């Protein structure tokens, strides 16, 4: 019995993970064929998504009133961003609480579209509040407001956040 079990052990080690050879062969070709079809449907759905995105934007946020607000983190920032709140003309527009994955994505250079809405042409005020924690454990709770002009074209505002320890504001807003 010992040789039987040992042979089985070696077989398991060599061919591990153990699975039915017949099942693997049966599924191998089918999987490859299905895999191609799955890739095709992914491509189809991506095309639908892309077209739908453009349609949605045209319908909900026409270019003459469209305002998009983006959030990014300054280069090499390591502070923990917990949440951001946006006000447009004194009215709350949106707020976002960051997950670990989102924070990591921002730190790697990703840009989050935090708000898309409509405003009329002319001057407006955007208020930004960020809450977080510095590496040294100190809390960050900063607010700042900026005036921007909305023209006929879609407006994109980029908010750059930094967890500065000095009195200087860590919130910067730029036109794009």
């Amino acid at each position, binding site marked *: 019995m010992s040789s039987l079990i040992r042979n089985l052990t070696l077989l398991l080690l060599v061919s591990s993970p153990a699975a039915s050879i017949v099942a693997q062969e049966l599924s191998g070709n089918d999987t490859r064929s299905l895999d191609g079809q799955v890739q095709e449907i992914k491509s189809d759905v991506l095309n639908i998504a892309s077209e739908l995105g*453009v349609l949605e934007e045209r319908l909900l946020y026409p270019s003459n009133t469209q305002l998009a607000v983006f959030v990014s983190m300054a280069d090499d920032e390591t502070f923990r961003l917990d949440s951001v709140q946006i006000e447009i003309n004194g009215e709350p527009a949106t707020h976002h609480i960051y997950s670990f994955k989102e924070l990591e994505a921002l730190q790697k250079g990703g*840009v989050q579209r935090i708000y898309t809405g409509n405003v009329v042409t002319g001057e407006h005020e955007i208020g930004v509040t960020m809450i977080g924690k510095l590496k040294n454990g100190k809390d960050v709770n900063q607010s700042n407001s900026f005036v921007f002009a909305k023209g006929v074209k879609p407006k994109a505002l980029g908010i750059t956040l930094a967890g500065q320890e000095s009195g200087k504001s860590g919130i910067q807003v730029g036109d794009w």
Partner: protein
Amino acid sequence: MSRAPFSGIGLLLFACLATSPCIGGELKDLYFGEALFYAHQGHFFEALERLDTEVKLHDALDEPELDTLHYHIDDAEFSLGDFELRYRMHHRAGRAIKAVLEGAVDEVIRNDAAYRLARIHFQKSQMADAMRALERIDGEIPASIRDDIEFLRANVYLAQGKPADAVGALKRLQDSDTFGGFAAYNLGIAYLQDGQQEAALTQLDRAGQIASDDPAELAIMDKSNLVLGTMLLDAGEYDKAIPFLNRVRLDGPFSNQALLSSGWANMSTGELERAVVPWSILAEREVTDPATQEAMLALPYAYGQLSVYGRAAISYGRALDSFSAEVDKLNASIESIREGKFLQALVREEIRKDKDWVIRLRSLPETPETYYLMELLATHDFQTGLQNYLDLADLRRKLVAWQTSFDSFDEMVDIRYDHYEPLLPDVDNQFREFDSRMRLRIEQHKMLVQRRDDLLTAPRPEFLATPDEQAVLEQIENIETRLQGFDTLAADSAMQRARRLKGLLSWTLETQYHERLTTFDRNLRGLDEVMAVAQKQYDQYVRARQAATHSYVGYEKPIERLRAQAGQAVDKIDLLMARQGRLLEVVAIEELVARRGRLENYGDKARFALADSYDRATQSQARRDEP
């Protein structure tokens, strides 16, 4: 030794070749940054959707160089291929990356693209194509993928059955920070495949002693020791095998196999008591593991060899109970999978939000269908099939959500139509009136501007007379005309008076001309501002009027088309999910049936051995009881 596990390990390690999506330099396009935001979180569908749209819009521009994406277009097109690759769309990724390769791009980007193309071919088991892509790499190579390229090259050589070539590539990677441990192990395997037994043993010994605290490196170290120990065990060199098997960590992923082999090595050298130690540990571990199941039989076998028949019988009894319970569990799993519950459990979205969802799914109560999921996931085909199934389920969820959006869009368009349609005829009438007045004023304004410009070159004081002065002047000229036919003193005197008055008026007009021209110019400039405001309001109205129409006209056909496409896609996905799901169920059931067969076989052996142990225990007892 079979080559199967070694080519397999190459594939397994390939997962660590993935590089992070990134861009060089300062980000100038927010929408590209948004795609990266999704990609960095592993949401490649969303990243692709954003970036694909942006690149298409960019390509459609008349002057793309004025678009901010222009600064990143090479990176963006490259990232498209990268995201497609990560979203397991190898066909599209291959096309996108080939397009980058054939475009006029920087050497560094071209080399990166060639590497990624090689990876795609490797994953599709197209080794000759993978090698051709690697051969296109020439000149400056990004430092971040230099080792990845060498490691891939070695894996391709191994898969092509050219271990001697792989040895060269792997030797160069021995000091790599990223691949040191993996390269050390693969080098041992390459020697082995090349028939260099001694070099293979030395290299695997070295790979089994690399100092590291990285879990992946520690696992590969365990794997090296296990393979080395098993080779020696297989060659009948039991004494030599034991130290290598003992090097495998007790809490590592290969510990069960090592404990089992260690027991057999000790047993083969006649160290029966030493064999009991690893098997005793192993017999207490997770019973679904085949090594544990085997140890549950091996342990009483060792007791039997030590003539401890009573303990052997008890252990056989325990093994029998465990096997029986496990067979029941397997039966429940198989039945549950046949009822379709396996697929239902897999697509539970709330479960998959957790990164350890496979482990959680397995530990859920009342879910026998997922109890063996971890074991099933160890097969490559099952992994691919499962990932496809989950992707299809995600796509289906998105499409169903969009179908709801289509209804909302329709309603929105209808509401806008109902709101604007009755208002617009009146608004248009008013606008036509306003428009004609506006055009008149614009013409008048143009005329005044022209007059001012004329006055600057050819002064005409009478043009700047006030309305009263113009009336007086007209009256005087009228009097002069009437007096011209009379030749009397009174008429002469009247004519003189008229001329004096006219002269007085001309004097005023001439002397005040410059002052009046300045005032006229100032007023005209003021009018320019008013006209600009009026023009702005006019333009705003035109835009608002257009926006009103655009808010509900021209959506019907695109919405209908998208609705139809989404519906067709859902139907196609349902079909694919059914096929993919069925395939997963078949593979899962076959695997579980095979497990059940093995356990039943073990059970038969345990039952026989249990009876044998009782007999021997009884005989032994009888011998002891003999006077």
